[in-house]
């Protein structure tokens, strides 16, 4: 059932957010702390999925975290072969209600040796749920808050 709901969201999302815009680099820099930025070597890679067309790929060099955008996994692979290691950002839209959108943002580490057409093996780094709100004036989705740093993989709870 979850898969069906996700598929519906994925297929209908582009039409729902037509003429809307999400500055990914802005959201990322508000989501992660300076410590996180250092862990990511101040650089995240994002492979733009075909089903999400509203991502603003503008880069601002003054931000602590820069995002490298890739149009396909093969172009990312070429980059990774040069860099050897890279931190990859993945986004899942969890829900869209009126002017609220919940995203799960996950960061994992990719290594050139373990990234091929056959297998893409990442190492878990961080996963968190983020709330965005829609600004009707600017027609932009803007960061509101981190809802939860998820501990689904490797973490301690206090």
């Amino acid at each position, binding site marked *: 059932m979850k898969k069906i709901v996700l598929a519906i969201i994925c297929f209908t999302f582009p039409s729902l957010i037509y003429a809307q815009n999400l500055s990914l680099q802005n959201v990322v820099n508000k989501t992660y702390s300076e410590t996180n930025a250092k862990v990511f070597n101040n650089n995240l890679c994002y492979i733009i999925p075909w089903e999400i067309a509203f991502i603003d790929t503008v880069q601002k060099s003054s931000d602590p975290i820069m995002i490298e955008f890739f149009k396909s996994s093969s172009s990312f692979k070429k980059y990774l072969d040069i860099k050897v290691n890279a931190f990859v950002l993945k986004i899942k839209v969890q829900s869209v209600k009126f002017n609220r959108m919940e995203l799960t943002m996950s960061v994992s580490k990719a290594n050139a040796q373990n990234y091929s057409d056959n297998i893409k*093996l990442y190492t878990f780094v961080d996963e968190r749920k983020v709330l965005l709100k829609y600004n009707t004036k600017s027609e932009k989705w803007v960061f509101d808050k981190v809802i939860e*740093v998820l*501990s689904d*993989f*490797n*973490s301690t709870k*206090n």
Partner: protein
Amino acid sequence: MDGVKVRHDEDGKDDKMMVLTSSTNSKVVNKQIGKGNDISNPTAMEMSGYDQIYTNMESNGMKENGFIVANNNAGEQKIEKSGDDLIGSVRQGPAALKLGRAGYDKIQYHVHGHGAVITADGSGGYTSGSASASAADYNAVATIQPSRVLGYDVQGNSSKIDFRDIAKADANPGQRIALSNPSSFAKQISFYRNGKPDIMTVDYNKFKATVNAVTNSN
């Protein structure tokens, strides 16, 4: 961290410390000590506890577990097992509270395991666990000494992942699948502090050998 004596401080105590660096350069050593990147040489009880974390994970579907080491005002040490063995996390708070109520309020460090696990993302990608501290780990409560994660080097041994585990992950995207052959992956220990992830990651067997060497040194 290689068991080489790098510094001697005459303070009337015979404590043995390990500096979290592979360098013997005095400038590097002093810098690491200045940053708090050194640990007391673990006792036999602590080392036995580390081994037990691996044993528990391997016999319990890679559920995480760990413990907290604390001291009281008299310098006596107490070890308290962390609560709830959960898949993907371990709860440290109740153990810290229990220690504090018993007068062991100087929390030296946390140690917990990260399982040899993979998840499939449903689009050809897989994510593995590692010995690295996660963001939730290094944003947790500060401790006197660097805390520790015990894990497996899955990324460096990806060819050893059993195809049946991959098939199981593919059939259950998003779910953590415990690898069926954890002994195929090198064990690692990593050290981190609050806000300072991964000070150092070393092979766990090498770490044990170093602890033995330091324990038996004059």
